[in-house]
């Protein structure tokens, strides 16, 4: 009989607080991850939106190519009409 009471006391005074303490720690850790993960998701979404202008790089590529071609044409003409340095 005495052992049963001792077992009850251990359950109530030791096991239950330890279980509650451990589970509470797990819950607080999981809750603390939630805002961080939401910030990561928001940053990834914003980063993906910022890259929407990447398609314009194709236009930039074409423009640069045309500009260099025009510069090459002008350079060729200047090479003809200007004297070389002595």
């Amino acid at each position, binding site marked *: *009989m005495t052992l*049963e*009471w001792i*077992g*009850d006391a251990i*359950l*109530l005074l030791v*096991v*239950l607080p330890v*279980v*509650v303490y451990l*589970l*509470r720690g*797990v*819950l607080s850790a*999981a*809750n603390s*991850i*939630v805002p961080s*993960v*939401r910030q*990561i*998701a*928001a*940053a*990834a*979404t*914003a*980063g*993906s939106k910022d*890259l*929407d202008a*990447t*398609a314009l*790089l*194709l236009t*930039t*590529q074409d423009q*640069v*190519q045309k*500009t*260099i071609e025009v*510069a*090459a044409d002008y*350079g060729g003409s*200047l*090479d003809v*009409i*200007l*004297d*070389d*340095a*002595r």
Partner: protein
Amino acid sequence: MPAAGVVMIIAVLLIVLALVYYLVSTIVALQRITNALDDAITGVVGIIEKSAPVDEVVTSINTNLDAGVDLLEGLLVKKAGLSDAMGLVDGLYPGAAAQGLRNFPDSKTTKAPRISEVYTKGTLTLARLGREAPIAAASPNGPALRNPAYGSTAARALYPEVRQSRPSSMPRSPIIGADSPVQYVPSESPGVRKRMPMAAGVTAAPAQGQEQAEGGAVKSRLAFLRRSTSDDR
């Protein structure tokens, strides 16, 4: 049932309740984390997809720009010479000559002439364009024609010798106004005056003015030149 057994059952129930409460809360938190991670993964996948062609496109742009730099540097050095080229670069972008030209390692050690302080923009180009350009005809290799401290007057020397050194030989500008010594009558048609200007107080026959007006612009100009010459004397 003994009291100790009841207490044990109550203790076990309490433990189970605590386990259920905290584990369910943890499950809910993990589900929120999973949802947020799904959003993050969607964003990251979008970033990966959108940035996939960047490497190829930027490489192409850089290749074209490299070709442009090679072309312009080569043309500049070929036409202006390395020293003048560095002077031009430093004149347009002060301090850039120290970095040198990419395809000309010697350009970093070349002493760049202070072209921007000596010539106005485009003057050197004029000199290169033709030997008949004023600066080239006067002194293509000589001393600086433009004094930076007195640039406005020194720059006149770049142009034909008419006014710069002999301003006194030029006729003076006419004095205008109601009390000017020579009165001008407004013309109704360009190039033709009703009568020639005359000194204040001098009256002339209207018929003479009309005759000159009808005589044409040539006579009027000749008369005006004669009058101007006599006024200067």
